């Protein structure tokens, strides 16, 4: 280390010192530049991130699995202590669900008959890709998680990510064997949703806080705590009707949603392949244009043409450079 004092400084030391300082300033500049590039939605930045994630995904996967096993043992122990109450609760729930089953059977049969009568076309069948979650939700700086499935498994940008309970988020950034899932709570997350009972459409916007909010509701919509929120299927990326959450608080400024999915307990998620190529595939968008007006191949500049009026996020809020 050639910086003891003025006595020992030779020319070489001086040069080394300057080089170090130069390197420091240069790297700080590079970090700033990276942030700017990221802000400007440069593809390279996301590509670099995807590559790095891909390289570390197998390691994270290897650590994640034993960690899960330990946790499940702990959970088992905890459950053992409360086995009696749990049993009571489940018996009650079972009773309740049996009633619902009867209702569902009746409705299903009725639905089949009505569909026959109307010659109703069922939408595309969804297929699922199961993936293990290999990182914690990013914590303070972002609300996203890595999953161990990527292009190799057929994951694409914009696809919905669900668990048995409901919607987790969407895929934002795919690499060869890993993908990043943007959770509902992330500041960049905008999901077209509707209130299940009134069918009023809105946008679910994350805030990097525990609870996302419901915005862009049509004026005069009546919302009340306890209303269920489901995806509206607008935008063409998500199937309609995936459960999202419950309205838990309503005041003048905000409608707060509590998601059904606890993002901190994600282990395995399912990525829904709905046969739609993410958000920006115009072929599947319900547009006002006649069908033959659609181009044969999706050309990149098409994304500036945005015929949807209900689901377009506020300009400048939808920032995900990873989307095509």
């Amino acid at each position: 280390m050639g910086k003891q004092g003025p006595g020992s400084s030779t020319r070489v030391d001086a040069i080394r010192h300057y080089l170090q300082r130069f390197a420091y300033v240069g790297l700080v500049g590079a970090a700033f530049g990276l942030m700017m590039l990221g802000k400007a939605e440069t593809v390279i930045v996301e590509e670099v991130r995807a590559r790095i994630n891909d390289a570390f995904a197998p390691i994270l996967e290897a650590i994640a699995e034993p960690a899960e096993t330990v946790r499940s043992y702990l959970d088992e122990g905890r459950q053992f202590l409360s086995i009696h109450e749990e049993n009571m609760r489940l018996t009650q729930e079972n009773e309740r669900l049996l009633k619902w089953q009867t209702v569902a059977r009746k409705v299903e049969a009725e639905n089949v008959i009505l569909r026959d009568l109307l010659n109703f076309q069922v939408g595309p069948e969804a297929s699922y890709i199961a993936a293990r979650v290999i990182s914690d939700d990013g914590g303070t700086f972002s609300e996203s998680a890595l999953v161990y499935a990527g292009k190799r498994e057929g994951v694409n940008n914009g696809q919905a990510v669900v668990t048995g309970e409901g919607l987790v988020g969407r895929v934002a950034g795919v690499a060869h064997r890993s993908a990043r899932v943007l959770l509902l709570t992330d500041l960049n997350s905008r999901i077209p949703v509707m209130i299940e009972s009134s069918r009023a459409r809105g946008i679910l916007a994350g805030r990097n806080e525990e609870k996302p909010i419901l915005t862009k509701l049509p004026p005069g919509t009546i919302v009340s705590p306890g209303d269920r929120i489901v995806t509206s299927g607008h935008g063409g990326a998500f199937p309609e009707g995936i459960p999202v959450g419950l309205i838990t608080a309503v005041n003048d400024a905000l409608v707060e949603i509590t998601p059904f999915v606890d993002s901190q307990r994600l282990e395995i998620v399912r990525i829904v392949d709905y046969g739609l190529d993410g958000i920006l595939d115009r072929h599947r968008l319900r547009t006002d244009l006649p069908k033959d007006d659609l181009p044969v191949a999706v050309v990149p500049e098409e994304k500036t043409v945005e015929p949807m009026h209900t689901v377009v996020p506020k300009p400048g809020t939808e920032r995900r450079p990873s989307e095509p």
Partner: protein
Amino acid sequence: MKPAFWQRLDLWARNISPVGLTVLLILLSVIPTHIPGYASIVPQLALMGVFHWTVFRPDLFPILAVFLIGILQDSLSGAPMGLNTLVYLTVFGVVLGQRRFFLGKSFFVEWLGFSIICAGAALQAWLLLSAYYVHVLAPAPVLFQYLMSIAFYPLLAWIMGRWQTSILR
């Protein structure tokens, strides 16, 4: 010829271990713990590594390593690219300038120093992130993360100190 080679390899492995340990800390901080509420306040483990090694072995902790550690943290945690990189570089620069203040002092001085530096880092990260998103973010998670980091520092400092005396000599 042979022993010289193995000795060099051994020395090289020892010398690279501070950076390796810090990378391990990053991985530890992103794996899923499934503890409710923990994810949003997970301590800044990598920052502790950067702080500790910059104070005690800056010769084994080059600037470029700090940069790469920041990039790794950013890309794995999903934070905007460059955010933690900037924070770690700032910490590196500040600590390197104030090294004499920490060397040969008691652990409490080191801990105090870390809590001051970490406060600055948390504030910087919060400001940068708010500017990045053009949105004033809730300060509570950053504050809790900061407190968690201070609470965890003695344990990690002890481990890294042991490592330093036994492996690096």
